[in-house]
């Protein structure tokens, strides 16, 4: 026991101590410091303005200095937004995002798994076709998609947002999953097969658990894109019953007009779910955002 303990901890220590050092010499990085300070101001001031404006009274908004925190902060603006169908829009956004991500992950995983586990000219062609999709700007397809959705009777239905959103997330999803699945050693699969596992069992018991990090990554990346998506909801839905949050922000702006604190409170509320994710899983979230572009 006493002899094994130090050998087990030593490599861990080495790995942790290396990156703790500053990458460049010991002299302070003045230029970097100035630029980063400047950028901090550029990022932080609008965020600060958003927060303090959202708790101002309307009179305070017209009278007070925009950068001085209000002397009598209020949550009335938030109440006003919440009373104006915010929960419905939040639910719509949640339904769209959760269903889209579920479909993307299942469909994308089946496709990626097949591309990796059944290599051949046919699956290679499938992969190449999907990769082509990376270069198609989503904007360019909205008019035909609008026509198709109207003809299919899906206009102003949440499905109308979900289906095209799934499609435009598939190429990057399959690419990330394929890259990850290819790194799983082949002998592991063969061992499962020798033990008599079917292809489904191999996928569900071996591949899926091993590729959990990649699945989480694509779920975060795709989920954020769908959650923040604006164009598909804009052209494919119309009524308040199917309104999602990004679209709701523009309708709040139209509804509250000069009640700017209420508009800004809506901006904050619509961002809260993602901000909460950021607080609890910052590393995971940031890793998910650069999904597939990291290397």
């Amino acid at each position: 026991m006493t002899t094994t303990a130090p050998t087990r901890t030593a490599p861990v220590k080495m790995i942790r101590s290396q990156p703790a050092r500053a990458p460049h010499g010991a002299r302070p990085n003045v230029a970097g410091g100035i630029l980063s300070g400047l950028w901090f101001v550029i990022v932080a001031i609008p965020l600060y303005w958003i927060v303090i404006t959202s708790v101002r009274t309307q009179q305070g908004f017209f009278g007070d200095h925009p950068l001085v925190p209000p002397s009598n902060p209020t949550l009335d603006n938030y109440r006003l937004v919440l009373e104006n169908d915010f929960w419905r829009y939040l639910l719509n956004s949640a339904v769209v995002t959760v269903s889209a991500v579920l479909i993307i992950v299942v469909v994308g995983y089946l496709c990626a798994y097949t591309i990796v586990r059944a290599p051949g000219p046919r699956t290679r062609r499938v992969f190449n076709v999907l990769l082509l999709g990376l270069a198609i700007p989503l904007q360019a397809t909205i008019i035909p998609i609008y026509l198709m959705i109207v003809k299919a009777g899906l206009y102003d239905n949440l499905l109308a947002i979900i289906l095209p959103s799934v499609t435009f997330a598939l190429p990057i999803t399959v690419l990330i999953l394929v890259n990850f699945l290819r790194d799983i050693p082949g002998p592991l699969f063969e061992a499962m097969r020798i033990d008599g596992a079917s292809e489904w069992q191999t996928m569900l018991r071996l591949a899926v658990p091993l590729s959990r990090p990649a699945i989480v990554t694509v779920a975060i990346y795709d989920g954020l894109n769908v959650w923040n998506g604006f164009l598909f909801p804009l052209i494919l839905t119309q009524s308040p019953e199917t309104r999602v949050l990004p679209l709701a922000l523009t309708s709040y702006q139209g509804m509250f007009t000069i009640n700017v604190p209420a508009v800004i409170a809506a901006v904050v509320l619509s961002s809260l779910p993602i901000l909460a994710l950021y607080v609890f899983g910052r590393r995971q979230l940031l890793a998910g955002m650069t999904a597939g572009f990291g290397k």
Partner: protein
Amino acid sequence: MTAHSERGAGPVRRSGPSVLLTLPALVFFATFAIVPLGAAVWLSFTEWSGLGDPTWVGLDNWRALLTTHDTGHALWLTVQLMVLTWAVQTPVSILLGVFLAGRQRYREILAVVYFVPLLLSSAAIAIAFRNLLDPNFGLFAGPGLAWLNQNWLGDPDRVFVTVAFIIAWQFIPFHTLLYQGGARQVPQSLYEAAAIDGAGRVRQFLAITLPQLRYTIVTSSTLMLVGALTYFDLIYILTQGGPGNATRILPLDMYLTGFTGNQMGLASAIAVVLVVLGMVLSLTISTASGFSRMESQLDGE
């Protein structure tokens, strides 16, 4: 046991999953990406108001695109925005990313704030900045900030730069994140060797960091340049393409022509132009960067 020995006798059968499992993905992709692409080409030869059925008009839309419609202006604005946002975002993102690659505690705290814009939707950012830049009640309306209090979004001479700034505000964090990841992969030994040779910080940055980041630069630039063809949400909410046509870039021009002007045929022609531009740009960049990859392999990397 018997089953085991039977299989053990021959080579393990490597059947793999059925190709049919790729079908769901292909159906989605064909329905909502390939078919719409073809349909956009077809619609560009029709006249359609958005209601009823499209009618064939031959080359009318394409003729209009080249003559009466102000395509050149939208295209020129798009190219300008592409170049401007790339030129602003790239140096700032590289410097910030390299700076944040350091593991000092205060830099990690800075990073927490830097990355917040990444979380906000374009709609949220646009609505916030629209109000923040309001000349009467916005951020700069307070005393002492008069020199900054311009009609940023209402003045045709200023709006373009303002939009580029807000785009940078939104996307620099993302590219900073890419460069931070890239800079952390640069082997520490290179810097140590350079320090022994007496290279200063600037020289280390130019001779080691930048060359080592070249793949990240290619990735980030591709995303920025091709992405510039798709800026829509932000500008749509901020300015609706105005004032006048001052920010009417191609994707916005397409949307406004189709869904506001009810000329879906002409808008489809613009969509086709967008697709071709996107493809050409992606291909050009990937070919160019493919060459640089080959060169670096010749260097023995």
